[in-house]
C-alpha cells in the first residue's frame, strides 16, 4: 500500500475513509449507480481528478500559476480526435493520438516555460493566458482541420462502442463497449494519478517544494530553479494532455467548448483550491466535490430560487445559472482562510 501511494499516506482517518469511498464508488460506478447520467458523471470525475492533479503539480508543488492548462487538455483531446479521424477506428490511432498529444503539449510547455519562467514566474501566468486564448481562437478558426466551433465527432475502436457485446449481463448491467470505455478511463486515470503521486514524492518533487517556498534559497543551494520549473511544467502539460485524451475517448467528441474554454480553466482553479493546493489528494476531493456539485447542486439552487420568488434580486442571485457566483465567493474565502483546502483541514483536525 505504501509503495503504491509512494509513501504519501492520507495521514488522516477521515481523509483515508473519504478517499476509499471515492475509489470504491468510482471503481464500481457502472454497477452501483447504473444509468447513463451517473456513469457519465463518474467518468468526468476520473478525468478531472487527473487534470486537477496535474495542475496541482504546477500550482501546489511548483508555485507556478498557469492559465493554459485547458490548452494542454485540449491538445490531448484533439490529438485523439484527429488521429481517429485520419487513421480510422483502431487502437493504434488512440495510442498515436494520445502520444502525439502529450508530446506536443510538453513541447509547447517547454517553449512557453523557457520564455517566461526565465525572467519572472509571474510572467508565466500572463503569457499562458494570452497564448491559451490565441490557441482557442485558432482552433475555432481553422475549421478545415479542427471542425471549428462545431468540433469533431469521431469513432473509437469497435470494442469500445456501445454496440459491442461481450456477454449478456452481470448484476443487471449490460456488458457492452460502454462499460469497457469506462474502465479504460478509470484505469488510465488511476495509473496517471499514481504516477503523479510518485513524481511529487520523488526527490524532484521535494526540490519543487523547496523552490515554491523560497526560490532564491533553492538557487543558492545549487538547484537550477528554471530547469526544475520548466520540467514541472512539461510533466504537468503532458499529464493534462493524457487526461484530455481519456476525455475524448469517453465522449467520442471534441469541441472548443468542451475541452478548451476558459470556463474549464476556472473550474480547475476552483477544484484545486477547494480540494487543497499542494496535496494530490486534494485533487481527488476537489474534483469529486465540484463535479458532483455541478451536476446536482445546480438543480437544488434552481428550486431554492423558486422558493424565494417575489423577493427582488434574490431569485436571480440563487438561480442555477449563478452558481459560479457563489463558487467565486467560496474560492476567494478559501484562498484566505483555508489555503490548504479540505485536505489540509482534515489533516490538521486529525
Amino acid at each position, binding site marked *: 500500500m505504501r509503495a503504491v501511494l509512494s509513501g504519501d499516506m492520507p495521514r488522516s482517518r477521515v481523509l483515508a475513509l473519504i478517499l476509499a469511498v471515492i475509489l470504491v464508488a468510482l471503481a464500481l460506478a457502472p454497477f452501483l449507480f447504473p444509468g447513463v447520467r451517473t456513469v457519465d458523471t463518474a467518468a468526468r470525475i476520473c478525468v478531472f481528478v487527473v487534470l486537477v492533479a496535474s495542475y496541482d503539480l504546477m500550482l501546489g508543488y511548483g508555485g507556478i500559476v498557469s492559465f493554459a492548462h485547458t490548452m494542454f487538455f485540449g491538445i490531448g483531446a484533439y490529438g485523439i480526435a484527429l488521429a481517429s479521424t485520419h487513421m480510422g477506428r483502431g487502437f493504434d490511432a488512440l495510442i498515436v493520438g494520445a502520444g502525439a498529444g502529450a508530446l506536443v503539449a510538453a513541447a509547447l510547455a517547454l517553449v512557453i516555460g523557457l520564455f517566461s519562467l526565465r*525572467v519572472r514566474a509571474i510572467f508565466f*501566468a500572463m503569457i499562458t493566458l*494570452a497564448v491559451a*486564448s490565441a490557441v482557442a*481562437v485558432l482552433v475555432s478558426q481553422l475549421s478545415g482541420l479542427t471542425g471549428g466551433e462545431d468540433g469533431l465527432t469521431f469513432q473509437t475502436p469497435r470494442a469500445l462502442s456501445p454496440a459491442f457485446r461481450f456477454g449478456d449481463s452481470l448484476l443487471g448491467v449490460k456488458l457492452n463497449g460502454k462499460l469497457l470505455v469506462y474502465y479504460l478511463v478509470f484505469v488510465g486515470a488511476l495509473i496517471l494519478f499514481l504516477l503523479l503521486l510518485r513524481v511529487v514524492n520523488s526527490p524532484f518533487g521535494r526540490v519543487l517544494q523547496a523552490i515554491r517556498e523560497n526560490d532564491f534559497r533553492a538557487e543558492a543551494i545549487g538547484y537550477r530553479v528554471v530547469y526544475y520549473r520548466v520540467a514541472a511544467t512539461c510533466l504537468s502539460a503532458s499529464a493534462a494532455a493524457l487526461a484530455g485524451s481519456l476525455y475524448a475517448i469517453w465522449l467520442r467528441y471534441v469541441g472548443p467548448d468542451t475541452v478548451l474554454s476558459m470556463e474549464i480553466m*476556472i473550474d480547475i482553479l476552483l477544484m484545486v483550491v477547494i480540494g487543497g493546493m499542494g496535496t494530490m489528494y486534494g485533487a481527488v476531493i476537489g474534483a469529486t466535490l465540484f463535479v458532483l456539485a455541478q451536476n446536482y447542486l445546480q438543480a437544488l439552487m434552481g428550486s431554492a430560487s423558486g422558493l424565494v420568488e417575489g423577493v427582488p434580486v434574490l431569485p436571480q442571485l440563487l438561480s442555477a445559472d*449563478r452558481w459560479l457566483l457563489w463558487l467565486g*465567493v467560496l*474560492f476567494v474565502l478559501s*484562498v484566505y482562510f483555508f489555503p490548504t483546502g479540505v485536505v489540509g483541514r482534515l489533516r490538521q483536525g486529525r
Partner: protein
Amino acid sequence: MTQAPDHAPKMARASLAHRVAPWLPLALVPVLAVLGLAAIPSLSSWLTLTISGLAMGMMIFIMASGLTLVFGLMDVINFGHGAFVSVGAFVGVTVLLMLGPMTGAPSLALNLAALLVAVIGAMLATGLMGWAFERAIVRPVYGHHLKQILVTMGGLIVAEQLIIVLWGPEEIYIARPEALKGAITFAGAALEKYRLVAVAVGLAVFLAMRLVLRRTRIGLIVRAGVQNGEMVQALGYRLRLVFVGVFMAGSALAGLGGVMWGLYQEVITAQMGNQAMILIFIVVIIGGLGSVEGCFIGALLVGLLQNYVAFLEPKAALISNIGLMVAILMWRPMGMIPVVKAK
C-alpha cells in the same frame, strides 16, 4: 618593490549604441507604420488602418495603464482588472441609454456632453469599486504573488457574475451618439469619427498622466515609490494612501477604457473585460511592467499590428500579437522599458 600603477581613470563617453538604446522603443511605432505602408498597397486603406490601429491602441493603453502602475508601485498583479473594464462599460452604457434624447440629437455638443456624463459616471463607479476591491480582495495578500493571482481571479469571477445578476445575461447592443456615427473622408480615406475621438481621448489621457507623473509632487512620490518603496516610506510618506489612490485611479481609467471600448465594439458583455485582459497583458508585458511610457508604446504597437495583419491575413490577427510579444521578449526579456527590478 614595484610601484603601484598610476591611477588614471578614463572617462569614456558611453558609446552611441548605449546612449540610443533607451530611446529605441520610441522608434518602433513609426517603423511599424512605415512597414505597414510598404505591405499595404493602397495609401487610403493604409491611412484608415493606421487611424483605427491608433484608436485601438489608445483604448488598450487607457485600460492597461492602471494595471502597470499598480504593479510597479506595489508589486501587485491584478488579474481582476478586467472586471473594472466590464463594470465601467455597463455603467457608462446604462447612463448613455438613460440620456437617450441627448445621444439621439444630431448635435455634437449635446452628444459629447452625454458621453462625458457617461464617462464620469463610469469612472466614479469603477473608482469606488477599485477602492472596495483593494480593501476586500487585495489587501490581505500583499507580497504573495500566487495568492494575488488566485484571489484577484476569484474577484473577477464574482464581479462578472454580479454584472449578470444586475444587468442580465444578454449582451447589450449600443448605438454610438448620433454625431459620432459615420466617417469623414480625408485624402480618399474613410476615417471613422469615433476613432478620431478615441485617439484624441487616449492622447489626452497619456499627456495628462505624464504631466501628473513628471510635474507634480504626487507624481514624484509615485515614481519614487516605483523605484524604491521602502525608501519613500522611510522619508515619511504614507505610501499606502498613495497606493490606494493609484489603485482607484487605475480602476477609474479602466472604467473609462471600458466605456470607450464598449462604444467601439457597439456591444457589451460581462466577459468583455476578461477578453480585453488578453491584449492588456500583452501590452503590459512588452512595455515593461511598471512603465507607463512602455505601456503606451506597446499598446500602439499592438493596435497597429493587429489592424495591419487583420487586413492582410485575417486569421493571423491574434497570433500576430503573440508573435510581437515573443519578438520583444527575445530582444528585451524585461520588456521594452524595464522599470521594476526583477524580484
